[in-house]
């Protein structure tokens, strides 16, 4: 099965969530596993966390894998304390 990587920008929040969501879903629609490269991402908002989790759930519903990669300490910490980290696998 193919894997495609999607690179996130510096921030993931309500300003860009629609675009990011669309691009992740495009990968999943193709039947590919997705790796979200978050190396550049410094900030993720409540909206952003939901984009990630929604994507993960869509992937799971299609029997696909979705991994996070390069998560910064700051973003990882936010995902830890809000519990969102429990849903993800890390590439």
């Amino acid at each position, binding site marked *: 099965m193919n894997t495609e990587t999607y690179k996130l920008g510096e921030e993931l*929040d*309500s*300003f860009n969530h629609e675009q990011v969501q669309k691009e992740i879903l495009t990968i999943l629609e193709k039947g590919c596993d997705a790796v979200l490269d978050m190396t550049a991402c410094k900030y993720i*908002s*409540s*909206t952003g*966390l*939901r984009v990630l*989790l929604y994507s993960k759930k869509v992937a799971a519903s299609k029997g696909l894998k979705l991994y996070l990669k390069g998560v910064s300490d700051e973003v990882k*910490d*936010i995902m*830890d*304390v*809000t*519990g*969102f980290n429990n*849903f993800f696998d890390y590439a």
Partner: protein
Amino acid sequence: MSRGSIISSIMHRVDLFPTHEYQGLKLRPGRPYPFGAMVIGNAVNFSVYSRYATDCTLVLFHNREEKPFIEIPFFKEFRLGNVFSMMVFDLDYENIEYGYRMDGPFLPAEGHRFDKSKILLDPYAKLIVGRDVWGKQPNLDNIYQYRARVVFDDFDWENDLPLETPVNDLIVYEMHVRNFTCGAGSGVKHKGTFAGIVEKIPYLKELGVNCVELMPIHEFDEFENFRPSPVDGHPLYNLWGYSNVGFFAPKAAYASSGRFSMQVDELKNLVKRLHANGIEVMLDVVFNHTAEGDQRGPYISYRGIDNKTYYMLTPDGGYFNFSGCGNTLNCNNPNVRDMIVESLRYWVTDYHIDGFRFDLAAILGRDQNGNPMSNPPLLESLAHDPVLGKTKLIAEAWDAGGLYQVGSFPSWGRWAEWNGKFRDSIRRFLKSDEGVLGDVKERIIGSPDLYASQGRGVKASVNFVTAHDGFTLMDLVSYNDKHNEANGEDNRDGENHNNSWNCGCEGPTDDADINARRHRQVKNAITLLMVSQGIPMVLSGDEMGNSQQGNNNAYCQDNEIAWLDWNDLEKNADIFRYFKQIIQFRRQHKVLRYDEHLTHSDYRNLGYPDFSWHGVKAWQPESGHHNLTAAFMLNGRYAETDGVPDDFIYVAMNMHWEMHGFELPQLPEGMAWHVFANTGMEAPADIAEPGKEPLIDSQKEILVGPRSIIILVGRSDK
């Protein structure tokens, strides 16, 4: 696929088209219900009620900006009854803060204090920002201090639900979010936060408690009444938080992620993680007053939204002060009652909260003129509410207006009470007061004198020796008098009647005998709590011998005074071990956890009564020394689990300062007494591992040392 079986495309609503426009924003009349702000499609629905307001304006800010970017009047057609509601389209609602201006009469004598110059918080705000990082100095010139935001209410609970642990099986641990992990040696990354508690879940499991009761976590302002201590200048905060800003929003600064306004998710994660470890979550809720104080206080929300509805007012329009905090929420006004019910339902449905402890709950039973009612509608509503149907409801059954309802709180069989009489009697017994044994006996058997006649059962009694209000357990045995100088009120604040005894020296000492006596007294106290029928509540920190340096009212001490010092775990290792074992013992023995009162009779012909009192002579409760000795026995055959009877348990209590021998009741053939605990012994002989109690030599008599308690287990060794 057959037609009509599955809809493969999304249906579009026909009522999500704007009908109005105001300064470039698209609007339409909103839905009056539910109150608050809610996302519907690509719109946010804002709804607020005010019985007496004449006009209302929605004020919108971009996040953290000082000035609003728009103020939208509610058009005439946006009002239904006394509710103002509108939908605003295409808002970037993650970046919006909202408030209201209310217009109406300013006639204090008639109860109205409308002031449209104020921007007001939505009483139903589910996310409040403005005090996001604990202790960070706010800009008090800001025209809108506590700001409502639109909440993200989706959360993946997976299979989590409230645990519905039988109430008589609970062991409650009363804790404060900051005090629990801010102190030295806590070892957590996220000190003083919900996330910090998650890090300590393994500790809570080791201790063995199965319910945490969080002191107020609704949004409040730690800077309320902020001042430097006149003693040494250290800052005095509103640490405890018994002063609500909002009834639907968690305290932002209790979340490590509060700086990003993610407190909702962080608290939900805490609840989910505690549940996954078998630990319930109870909230201490403060519905008796708000942070607005009396007529000198600020306009935060309720005063400006609808003063006459929200507050109990004197005939001349002043504020009743049954709370001791300046105002009294008008709990039995039908609209306020609805708000309280909705708030509680929200915490149960959206946060999976297992129960509530109601601060100064007697106020909830007063009518709009302040008079106590016999069947208060609010309390009745809560007792019968469908959503709250399995939620624990616990009343602090008194108020600051002199109403004391321990034993008489209107319950409809649903409400339990903080049993203040348990605390008082047990404390007096511990310090060898001679006139209290009769009362102590009632407390040990679940206070039938208070609860049996109403058929409320043992489960109506929440037993405790210490709580946040008053001395910690170690201070209870280390101080005769309170030492609250650091609070800056010349030691006038705080309870004067503590029933405490310092064991021979006021405060810390190097005297080994006194320290040994204190440890023994601490173990006596937790023993009495854990072998009593009812719901035991432990004050966080008591298990490690936490001291507040004699301060019995540390509501403002956000420092080492109130914070747990985790190094105490090592210093008082014997106390921690004792707590763990006796909690485990209670959890293993159903005979200690009845939900109904004991009969003191052998109603099933099992050879022994379910419960019996003894003295220094078996079966003779009167035999003993000056009301300072007593013993009791529980018959495990009356407490079966899946057909397997529990053990017999015998407890001998000697609060005399000399040793006494207790004659033991004879056990059924084939059984023998084993010793589980003896507080008169040094660790590790003070307590055994539950289930591995050693056999005692003499099955006829035991010697109970000065101010000591012995617990025996009667069972047959295979």
